[in-house]
């Protein structure tokens, strides 16, 4: 049930500050695409614009045949975009179960059996959540909250899953677990995934394609194997005279 995402010329920002200055990218149906880049490059703004939290000032976003640029977040949830936000943002006093139930809020009055079955799937994917099903979400560890946030997003049965730095603050072991789950989602469910990450290495290991963002634009694109050893990616994080112009040579 996945659809592809096509973004062209996307511009967005806050009040006086233009953060996205014409972003073009695409996520094919069933593809796992990573977006990496230094802080301030606009990765989070990109996801917030795609999920409807921010209204773009220019550009187009298509999900399948549907134009979704500028649609507010509460309506986009029903149209198949699930955004797992930075810092997870689970509902702290609500239980794991309730968080998951609310994840399906946009689906409206689904049959009971449907929800239960979906929840079961989440528990299979993230067994740790099953152990804590009645616990308040705020008492979970960082890794468990991340799993819960992802599961909550999945409960909406999205065509496109947006993830904002899921590895933030988590031990490498947990990151591995979570990323393995993402791979399963792509392989088994054919889900389209757009993964924003600072941990480029881990992201590259599971992505089909990757983009490098720099100062509001896409600076590079390619397969992870190509990008991994490209000194320009290294430079994008740690300096070296790299600019948005791909023809500039690294120092």
């Amino acid at each position, binding site marked *: 049930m996945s659809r592809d995402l096509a973004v062209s010329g996307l511009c967005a920002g806050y009040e006086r500050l233009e953060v996205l200055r014409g972003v073009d990218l695409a996520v094919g149906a069933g593809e796992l695409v990573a977006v990496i880049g230094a802080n301030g490059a606009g990765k989070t703004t990109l996801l917030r614009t795609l*999920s*409807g*939290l921010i209204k773009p000032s220019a550009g187009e976003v298509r999900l399948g045949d549907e134009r979704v640029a500028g649609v*507010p*977040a*509460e*309506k986009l*949830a*029903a149209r198949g975009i*699930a*955004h797992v*936000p930075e810092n997870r*943002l*689970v*509902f*702290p*006093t*609500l239980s794991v179960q*309730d968080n998951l*139930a*609310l*994840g399906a*809020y*946009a689906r409206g009055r689904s049959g009971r059996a449907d929800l239960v079955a979906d929840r079961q799937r989440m528990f299979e994917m993230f067994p740790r959540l099953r152990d804590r099903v009645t616990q308040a979400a705020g008492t979970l560890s960082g890794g468990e909250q991340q799993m819960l*946030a992802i599961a*909550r*997003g999945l409960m*909406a049965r999205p065509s496109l899953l947006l993830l904002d730095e899921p590895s933030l603050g988590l031990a490498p072991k947990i990151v591995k677990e979570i990323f393995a789950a993402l791979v399963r989602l792509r392989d088994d469910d054919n889900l389209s995934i757009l993964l924003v990450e600072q941990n480029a290495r881990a992201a590259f290991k599971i992505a089909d394609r990757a983009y490098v963002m720099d100062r509001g634009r896409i600076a590079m694109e390619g397969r992870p194997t190509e990008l991994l050893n490209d000194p320009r990616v290294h430079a994008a994080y740690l300096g070296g005279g790299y600019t948005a112009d791909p023809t500039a040579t690294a120092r």
Partner: protein
Amino acid sequence: MTDFLQLTFAGVSVGAVYALIAIGFVAIFTVSEVINLAQGEFAALGGLVAISSVASGLPLVPALVVALVSVAIVSVLMERLVIAPVRRMTTLTSIVLTLGVSTALKAALLLFYGPNAEGLTAFSAGFIDIGGVTIRAHELWILGVAAVVCAAVYWFYEKTTTGKSLRACAEQPVAARLVGISLGRASLISFLVAGVTGAIAGVLASPVTFTAWDSGLTLGLKGFVAATLGGLVSMRGAILGGVVLGVLESLTAGYIDTGLRDAVAFLLLIVVLVLRPGGVFGRHAEARV
């Protein structure tokens, strides 16, 4: 000792009324950070509509229903017409706005119902003697109904999807939007909850304290003080706060001076606000700069 019990019991029953009004404050504030200074008017309106319905011939129970529905309509209208249109609502703005509505409502009540205070017929007449303590039968109704309402509120927020979605809005508005919850609708529902609980408080209180066009002022403010004891975000705290306030008032009036009754709430308010150290609404909400 019987005096003490008498006063305490009276305090608990009036405190239950405060608690119901306090619930309304918390319901609205948690979702939208609006402090609704017209909350007391919801109660006064409820009482007055019930009284006039009974006076025009309706039996008690249908009159109560009419009262609840009327206040529900007013609360929803208030949210749609006054709260929703404001783009950048700060808490201070909400105070001034709801103050305006409260003033207008008071005047409307004066216009339609006249200046005199009236009392609704008690749900059960007469008095009951328990171990030397005399209580009104109606006060048992107050406690009973209040308890049921609190249970209903608990059930709503803990067990229903709508109630949980309201809590989600309060705790994580961004994530709430992302799962499809409409903040505007949540605000509307919260006002509805506040209207209904306020109206119930008004009809419960009326037989004992009598309702007039300006009853809303003291009722609302005392309900607010009770809500503050729960930090404006905790239902449990608000309910407990209401009872504590009611008892303190009653004991002060009985043992110290009846005239000081109203001052207790505000002294309590100032004391609580000042002594709350840093806390939830403290000195610097960690400024995200």
